């Protein structure tokens, strides 16, 4: 209770929520990102040396989620929009690969374009409605829209409905099945992560990004100095939706199976946990966040089929007993989350 009171006291004068860090040393972050992506690029070589092809598959999955986490961190960490329906974009993107594939359209670029248009439109419509509200309302409405997309796909029996749909092959690139090779696919995913990181970083550093961070700190003041938050937040929401949709196309390719479970609200919650684990508002935390969560999931599942119980306990304890929630915990004990 004491820590809470201090938190509240510290938070009020500055107008900053606890655990949120200023943008520091962007050059340093970009260097760290460069090193991180460089190390990741060597991963298939390492996997070859220790003869563990599963390593590449695991990391492909981690990196696919990292793309979605990047996009969520963009609106959550920089726009202060706690979207609880982000998995819907991931799922819509996955269906944008699976449904055309069922009709013989397997070209990756075409599927990415379909995903971008579909997710962009969905984000535009639902974002325009959700952003009319704030706080608790926004969380509930994004959750409801995510669930709407989930139910839509569940009842779409032409494409598997609840049971999901299996992809016959991975997407093709200009007619070649080069993505069937796991290592090639790994590099495609890694390249997408790096590109998403670079694009979002550029946006955050731009005038647009400054305005967005401003609305995070104090929407009323931004409004007062002539920047109405709505168009900026909506644009950010649409960008995040499109990037998450692209992650969805890759996820469908990684698992070669798509089901409505991808867009369940638990998945949305897990994406938020990944963002917070990696450090909110850091961008570079997306990869470690996704890695930590997926490894934790696997590690707990190794002990017991009831691994969700362990995950829940860890979540509650971290939020309750560390100042500023998980972000505070990470920066305090692990030294991560610094951008």
């Amino acid at each position, binding site marked *: 209770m004491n820590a809470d009171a201090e938190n509240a006291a510290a938070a009020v004068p500055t107008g900053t929520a606890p655990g949120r860090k200023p943008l520091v040393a962007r050059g340093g972050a970009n260097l760290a990102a460069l090193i991180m992506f460089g190390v990741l690029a060597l991963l298939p070589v390492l996997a070859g040396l220790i003869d563990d092809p599963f390593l590449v598959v695991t990391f492909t999955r981690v990196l696919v989620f990292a793309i979605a986490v990047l996009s969520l961190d963009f609106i959550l960490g920089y726009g202060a929009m706690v979207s609880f329906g982000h998995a819907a974009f991931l799922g819509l993107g996955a269906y944008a690969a699976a449904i055309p594939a069922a009709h013989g359209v397997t070209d990756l670029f075409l599927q990415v374009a379909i995903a971008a248009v579909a997710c962009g439109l969905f984000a535009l419509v639902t974002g325009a409605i959700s952003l009319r509200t704030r706080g608790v309302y926004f969380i509930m409405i994004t959750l409801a829209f995510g669930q709407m997309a989930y139910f839509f796909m569940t009842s779409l029996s032409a494409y598997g409905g609840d049971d999901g749909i299996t992809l016959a092959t991975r997407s093709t690139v200009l007619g070649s099945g080069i993505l069937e090779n796991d290592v090639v696919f790994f590099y495609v995913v890694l390249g997408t992560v790096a590109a998403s990181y670079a694009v979002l970083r550029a946006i955050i550093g731009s005038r647009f990004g400054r305005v967005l961070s401003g609305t995070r700190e104090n929407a009323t003041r931004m409004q007062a100095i002539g920047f109405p938050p709505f168009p900026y937040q909506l644009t950010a929401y649409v960008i995040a939706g499109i990037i998450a949709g692209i992650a969805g196309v890759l996820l469908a390719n990684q698992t070669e199976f798509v089901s409505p479970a991808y867009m369940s609200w638990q998945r949305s*919650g897990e994406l938020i946990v990944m963002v917070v684990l990696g450090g909110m508002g850091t961008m570079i935390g997306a990869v470690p966040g996704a890695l930590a969560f997926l490894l934790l999931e696997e590690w707990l599942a190794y002990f017991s089929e009831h691994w969700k119980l362990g995950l829940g306990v860890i979540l509650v304890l971290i939020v309750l007993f560390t100042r500023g929630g998980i972000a505070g915990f990470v920066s305090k004990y692990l030294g991560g989350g610094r951008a």
Partner: protein
Amino acid sequence: MFNLFLLQALNGVQFGILLFLVAAGLTLIFGIMDLINLAHGVLYMVGAYLAATFTAYTGNFFLGVLIALPVTLVFGIVLEVLVFRRLYERDHLDQVLATFGLILILNESVKIIWGAAPLSVPTPDLLSGSIPLIGPLRYPLFRFAIIAAGLLTAIGLYVMVNHTRVGMLLRAGAVNGPMVSALGVNIKRLFMVVFGLGAMLAGFAGAMVAPILSVEPGMGDSVLILTFVVIVIGGVGSIRGAFVAAILVGLVDTLGRTFGPILLRSLMDPSAASQTGRTMAPMLIYILMAAVLFFRPSGLFPAKGNA
């Protein structure tokens, strides 16, 4: 056709009443404490499981529900003391994470204690069978009992909120919590009472549906999201709004699922109509929510001027 409409309308009202019971506690928690509680649906599940267990022990459904109620109340208060009390001062993201964690814990604990297979609770003899409506039309007595019990609870809540001292504090708390605290009201105790009450109402809803739905882990999750829709439409912190919105959502959802395909059949061929109808029907309430928000961003009956 009219008969079908009447039956489905009654089903819709019954569904709406249940949603109201869950939403009533949650809207107060949102409104008064500004706390986003994702774990409220889990309390509905706990109520259903407790009712199922105590019914099996005592062999009597009414006794089972009667024991389940105070137990869910205590369970709610324990949760408040252990977890929620520490979250009031935090930002919404922390609240989302902690209550998300609670859902995982409670869903999984239920699975460990009672197993993953659904439990079934027999309808009590006293309320089995059906009663005549008009002509040859009959309606299950138990569903009538749910509507009646829900309406009685709603009236009780209305009286409590509008005509008692606790209710006055609740309304004042929803409009301006810090001011109520500054005037010397023990707001912590008020929070605890509201939370326990909300837990009991959700548990009551769960206990009552135990005989007509399967009692299974995760049953609270879908209810939670519908409850959110109800609260968003009704306006955070408003019991009256929650009631109107719950009945509205119950009716739109139930009637939409039945009559959507029938209406579409007059426009397109039968198979396409049933496919489109089945796809569109679950989305109706979200479209309703979006429409309400478009015209009234803070719901139909906002408790605060600008929530």
